[in-house]
């Protein structure tokens, strides 16, 4: 009987599939951190009619996936299915006067930059890679080096169109269907499939950044520098030497920048202020062996990085190199070896930030798990129900997936939680539901919107189930 039941369930699944004409591809899938990884059935519709059909006809739980640049399991869906939306990458309208671009969710920031930088426009908010899609950026409500000034990407959206479980496309913004808007920006694709958005681009006079680099001897010095210089610059970010300790704990190299004005360029560049030479890109052809980024190499790298950076009051750097230092190395995630890595990005409220940074850096130093890249940034104001940033400091770390890493990160979680902090969903692959629930106090409001637009929880991901984002 049991076998019969299983069989008829399988037959039912096949019959359901027949209703969906769109082809499926079964392939191993992971986020950018390459952990976790699972065999997944993936749709890649090319037309809106196809997307609406599969959303309404496929009974499996679904989640949209853009460029796959979330680090963990946000765009994974092991027993369910994934909808790759990268073929919806058409730009629909652009208004020179306002800088508003209407485009589909699969358009990448890189595509936008290549199209509009030469015309004197640039996305207001960009994270550290240009390879992400607009839909993914909205779902994660991404932030950039200008968060202290300009908040996250949600603050620069005139509208977002979401295809709901019913197949209906609903437009939302901070003024129209505001509940849906604030649950969708930062909502990890769980309110529906983001299909279109109207995104504000800022005017730029040149493609160059006038930057200032300042070295901080320790964490207090770093905070002092952020406090002093954040007012002067649109963009700021710090790199922290994780291998440092004692009085040098938190020594860092802090980088500030503003888009350069025309008169800040020399003659040659001024002749073509918005054009840049195409960057040469390297790629990582193989998975590095596990020891390649061991404690010794990471410590040596950190030492070298700190020593090779000097206080530089004024330098011109092209905006691609300024915003996307890692994009020139394709597949850089392979340096962490085949078992992948975990990104750990936390944020603390302002009053707890110094203590949070100190105890986290001390814990890392004690554990000898130095992070290759440790990035620190001061956040500003933030809206949204599940958006990650909060006024205070954020620290971003990456750790190769090794035995003992999970218990160690659980310890960090406990410390972050105790100080009223939280972790970034777009980077997470492992936190507990309790950690998530405690870190996101507006979850109940988000759940109310989710229940209203998707009562059957049709949109679900490995991340949303792991974190019990919807009540179980």
């Amino acid at each position, binding site marked *: 009987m049991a076998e019969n039941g299983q069989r008829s369930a399988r037959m039912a699944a096949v019959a359901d599939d027949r209703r969906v004409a769109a082809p499926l591809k079964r392939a191993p899938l992971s986020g950018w951190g390459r952990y976790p990884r699972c065999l997944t059935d993936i749709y890649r519709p090319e037309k809106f009619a196809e997307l609406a059909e599969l959303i309404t006809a496929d009974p499996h739980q679904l989640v949209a996936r853009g460029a796959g640049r979330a680090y963990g399991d946000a765009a994974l869906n092991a027993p369910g299915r994934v909808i790759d939306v990268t073929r919806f990458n058409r*730009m629909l309208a652009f208004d020179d006067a306002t800088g508003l671009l209407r485009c589909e969710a699969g358009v990448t920031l890189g595509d936008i930059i290549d199209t509009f930088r030469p015309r004197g426009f640039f996305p207001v908010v960009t994270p550290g890679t240009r390879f992400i899609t607009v839909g993914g950026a909205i779902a994660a409500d991404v932030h950039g080096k200008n968060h202290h000034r300009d908040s996250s990407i949600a603050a620069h959206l005139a509208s977002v169109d979401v295809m709901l479980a019913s197949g209906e496309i609903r437009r939302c913004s901070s003024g129209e269907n505001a509940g849906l808007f604030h649950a969708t920006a930062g909502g990890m694709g769980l309110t529906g499939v983001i299909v279109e958005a109207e995104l504000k681009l800022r005017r730029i006079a040149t493609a160059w950044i006038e930057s200032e680099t300042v070295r901080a001897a320790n964490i207090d010095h770093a905070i002092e520098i952020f406090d002093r210089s954040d007012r002067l610059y649109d963009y700021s970010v710090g790199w922290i030497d994780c291998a440092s300790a004692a009085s040098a704990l938190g020594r860092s190299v802090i980088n500030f920048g503003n888009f350069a004005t025309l008169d800040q360029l020399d003659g040659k560049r001024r002749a073509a202020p918005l054009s840049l030479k195409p960057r040469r890109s390297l790629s990582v052809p193989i998975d590095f062996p596990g020891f390649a980024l061991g404690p010794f190499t990471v410590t040596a790298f950190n030492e070298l990085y700190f020593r090779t950076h000097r206080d530089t009051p004024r330098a011109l750097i092209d905006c691609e190199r300024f915003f996307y230092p890692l994009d020139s190395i394709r597949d850089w995630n392979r340096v962490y070896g085949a078992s992948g890595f975990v990104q750990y990005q936390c944020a603390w409220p302002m009053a707890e930030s110094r203590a949070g940074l100190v105890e986290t850096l001390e814990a890392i130093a004690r554990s000898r798990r130095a992070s290759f890249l440790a990035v620190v940034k001061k956040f500003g104001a933030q809206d949204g129900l599940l958006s990650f940033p909060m006024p205070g400091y954020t620290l971003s770390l990456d750790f190769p997936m090794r035995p003992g890493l999970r218990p160690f990160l659980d310890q960090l979680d406990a410390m972050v939680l105790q100080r009223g902090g939280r972790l970034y969903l777009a980077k997470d692959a492992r936190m507990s539901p309790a950690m998530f629930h405690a870190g996101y106090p507006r979850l109940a409001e988000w759940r109310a919107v989710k229940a209203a637009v998707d009562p059957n929880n049709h949109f679900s991901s490995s991340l949303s189930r792991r974190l019990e984002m919807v009540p179980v």
Partner: protein
Amino acid sequence: MAAAAHRIAPGGAPRVLILGATSPIARALALEYARGGAALYLAARDTAEAARIAQDLAVRTGAAAQAGPFEASDSAAHPELIRRAAAALGGLDGVAVCFGALGDEPTAHHDAAAALKIITDNYTGAVSILTLAADHLEAQRSGFIIVIGSVAGERGRPRNYIYGSAKGALALFTQGLRARFARTPIHVMTVILGTVDTRMTWGREGAFLTVAPERAATMIHKAWRRRAEVVYVPFFWRFIMGVIKAIPERFFKQLKF
């Protein structure tokens, strides 16, 4: 240079009708032309999608792009389409046949109506529109025709012989058209396409050596610029198909692929 080679007037920017404009290759090809300053008329069954693509071309390149309906099997509507495209663009210099569909091959093996539908969608529909387009270009003694065929049209296989026969017939038709225009400036190009990363190959077992549609379109556009007549895209399919066509039938029919 390309414009001069194709004797396009005035201003050198061709006015191109793309048929089956919502396919990823058609879209990418349209973008290649738009970047070169061409004006485009995008005809497709799904006009809402074609309109989005037209908007995309306009935003990215500033090109004039319009969209309109096209149904391969509705040959009665084809003369009107040619007129409408020519009127919208202020003339017509080129026509690209990019439509085609695999259809339901397993069903079609035992269902004549399904088989004939595949033939219509891939062959007779193209014959209808190309006959009209050819006369239009012949009357003005200039212009070009691009027809996208398939490596599936080069040898019959159990997996897709109905689709393949339509694509093979289309290649012969195009070859004949090229010969008809041999003493005119009209350029007729056959593209023999390998496997491209689109809906047709998504999740399909044995879809190997696939290229991105954008890359395929760049190669097609380059071939057009140098006035190629028959071009394999990507080029290495010429060698692969050379080998496949050389296998004696009594062995070939035993092969499982």
